[in-house]
């Protein structure tokens, strides 16, 4: 509690102590979303940078773990949106020829490709819920949404994934 109060007041030593205590946890959470260790390291530093800047808004009576996880989720989601947008621009013409090409390809690669094309806010829920099997409560808290919204997004992600696979000629 004392450490959290000092951090909220802008004490750099308190920030370092919290960094050492939570960096592994934040990294694990981010790597589950972005699925790349190098990017997850960069985004962990970015998360703590945002945490440091927002120190005055932190309430020391609340959970630092939950607050930092929420910031980490936003950082990871921003990254997914950026990558998604870049891919959209680069692969716009490619989607038209994809069905024929996929017939020759490995189905697994096609699933990964279809999954990566999901809108970021559905993809993050699908990754955490379907792949990592995190609870709806934890996902909802990290995204700042209710459990019902998490379930809806998971449902929409699965439907959209099936549609994309069907378009690629894969009928699971």
């Amino acid at each position, binding site marked *: 509690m004392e450490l959290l109060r000092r951090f909220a007041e802008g004490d*750099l030593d308190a920030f*370092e102590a919290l*960094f*050492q205590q939570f*960096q*592994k946890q934040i*990294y*694990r959470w981010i*790597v*589950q979303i972005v*699925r790349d*260790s190098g990017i997850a*390291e960069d985004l*962990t*530093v970015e998360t*703590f*940078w945002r945490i*440091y800047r927002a120190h005055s808004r932190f309430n020391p009576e609340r959970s630092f773990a939950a607050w930092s996880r929420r910031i980490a989720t936003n950082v990871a989601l921003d990254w997914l949106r950026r990558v998604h947008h870049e891919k959209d621009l680069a692969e716009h013409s490619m989607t038209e020829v994809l069905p024929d090409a996929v017939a020759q390809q490995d*189905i*697994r690669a096609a*699933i*990964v490709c279809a*999954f990566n094309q999901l809108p970021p806010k559905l993809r993050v829920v*699908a*990754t955490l819920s*379907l*792949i*990592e*099997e995190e609870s709806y409560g934890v996902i909802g808290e990290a995204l700042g949404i209710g459990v019902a919204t998490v379930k809806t997004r998971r*449902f929409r992600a*699965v*439907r959209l*994934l*099936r549609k994309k*696979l069907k378009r690629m000629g894969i009928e*699971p």
Partner: protein
Amino acid sequence: MKPGDDERIEKILREAIPPLTGAELQRDLWPLMQRRLEERSFAVSWLDWSLIVASFIWLVAFPEVIPALVYHL
């Protein structure tokens, strides 16, 4: 759509993208964090730059204020 379609999709997804069990951080990121903190503490914001430029233009346009400014400093 047949019943169980969603479950099949979920199953093949988990097979294609397995969970990251044991994905641990391999190094201490504090040195990177420190570098980031140092870089930002020396960074001059765009607002500061625009004030510097505006002051410079003002002094060039009205050089007669320079002695008064120096006197007050």
